């Protein structure tokens, strides 16, 4: 029996700011994990990663495990949770952005 495929998202850092970004289903890069495209097919995930790597303005794209949530994908691992949220010692990064929204 083959192991079940863990759904993936494509994530990277923005070239100019370094901020964490996620590939959306309509080929944009979003700053919010909830807007990421959740890919549940391994072959599609690899293709989407290839698409992402060809784009400019993006650094270090990779596939990260994620799980479906009621408001879009959620991180499967704590590292991705920190990337999605920002550092825990200051309300900087994405937390800061959220304060302004």
């Amino acid at each position, binding site marked *: 029996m083959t192991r079940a495929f863990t759904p993936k998202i494509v994530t990277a850092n923005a070239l100019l700011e*370094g901020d964490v970004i996620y590939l959306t289903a309509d080929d944009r890069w979003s700053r919010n994990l909830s807007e990421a495209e959740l890919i549940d097919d391994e072959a599609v995930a690899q293709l989407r990663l290839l698409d992402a790597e060809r784009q400019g303005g993006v650094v270090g794209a990779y596939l990260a495990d994620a799980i479906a949530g009621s408001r879009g994908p959620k991180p499967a691992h704590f590292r991705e949770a920190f*990337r999605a949220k920002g550092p825990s010692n200051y309300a900087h990064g994405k937390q800061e952005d959220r304060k302004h929204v």
Partner: protein
Amino acid sequence: MYDYNDFDEQFVRERVAQFRGQVERRIDGSLTEDEFRPLRLMNGLYLQLHAYMLRVAIPYGTLTGARMRQLAMIADRWDKGYGHFTTRQNIQFNWPELRDVPEILEALADVGMHAIQTSGNTIRNVTADHFAGAAADEIEDPRPVAELLRQWSTDHPEFQFLPRKFKIAITGAPRDRAVTRAHDIGLRMIVRDGEPGFEVVVGGGLGRTPMVGQVVRDFLPKADLLPYVEAVVSVYNLLGRRDNKYKARIKITVHENGIDRIRELVEARFEQIRPMFGGADQQLLAQLEQSFSAPDFLRKSTDAYYSARNADPVFRSWADTNLAEHRDPDYAIVSISLKAHGATPGDATSDQMRVMADLAERFGHNELRISHEQNVILPHVHKADIPAVHAALKSSGLGTANIGLISDIIACPGMDYCALATARSIPVAQEIATRFEELNLEHEIGPMKIKISGCINACGHHHVGHIGILGLDRAGVENYQITLGGDGTEDTVIGERAGPGFAYDEIVNAVERIVRAYLSLRSDASETFLMAYRRLGAQPFKDALYPKEDEADAA
């Protein structure tokens, strides 16, 4: 203090101009990330979890007021109003944007600073005793030699692509405050037959394979230092393993070949290259010694210091922990704690940097130091001025009286910033400091070094912590391993792993159990944790860490 000459100035400006072009070409797409990455790393620019990080070298940890003020300006203008001082006496800015980095480097060049060789497989920033030039126990100020090494290693064509990064630490005192035995080369000044020279240690390092450095030359005359260090690096450059990143540091080269073989090769290479130095290095060193000559120490009454001690218990408590003995009895060395309870170890706001710059200029002969323990030092303060310095520090959140105590914790940035980290370290440090503040036990516990790393690379020096904490990822959950009995002084000891790790919400309780065991086991208050550990061994502390079921229930 060394100031750039025309050659340094031109070299640094050229590098900034080159990097400006490289950033432009990266942004317009002419350079791929694979092409750009080595270029940005050569200039200290990393890409971390949430943003870029610029690591700026503070050579041998020495700053002037003007340089500190410029770091504050950079923090305000291009970052988020703070900087993070590291265990390698560097400062890191956690939020620069790529487009701004050439401007930041230009601003650094304006005050004779740069970020060159703060990354990559090169000779990194040479670190030194943070009490250099001031300590009572010092033989000689090691910084002229450190500056000589900086000039020699910067852009050295032979050593830009070493098997792995290479770190040199130097101390001019027999008491080792620079962790020299955990460096690729450690230089410890000693005197033989009235002549100052160095004990040369190689192959120390922490990381996934911690090793205490071994003596390759027990006494090296000062005049032979540069050719000898070059011989060591050159032997390593040929012999070091480029096939496996994890076996590429010189500690593995020394381990695999044995110190005798390394010594043989180094001595042979040294004999070969020594004549080529022709005395130019010694002429330069003589000039450098001039620029590091001691300040003109003031002569005035020290009464104000002693009356403040008598009148103000808060001042006295701070003075007892944060002052160290100066070579001039009218002076003291002031350690400014960047470890306020609950704050991020090593972080200073731009306002705090300006306060420290002002104090250095007004009361400290314009000198500041960064310690590897992530604090800031005013190395030369006349005792009469110490009450004023303390008052200014206290009103800026810099008056914490905890140097060398349990809340004076080294912590790497960990998973809050670092892309390599496997767990967080900063919040663990914050919570330990807060816990012992609440328990009001800190001063009773006495000297205690807790050091925390968020991954096996050990930037937080956990192996040499009296209590070391290593954060790991165990099956997708943060898990913290404890080591006990480490020591980073001249008697360097790698701590011993206590046993299974602890979950994030258990680690602070675990540390408290060790500390409570120590308090109940020590012979009296003069027996420090490390002394008690050496007397009793690990077992009683392990028993406290891992209580058996029935004891746990009873507790």
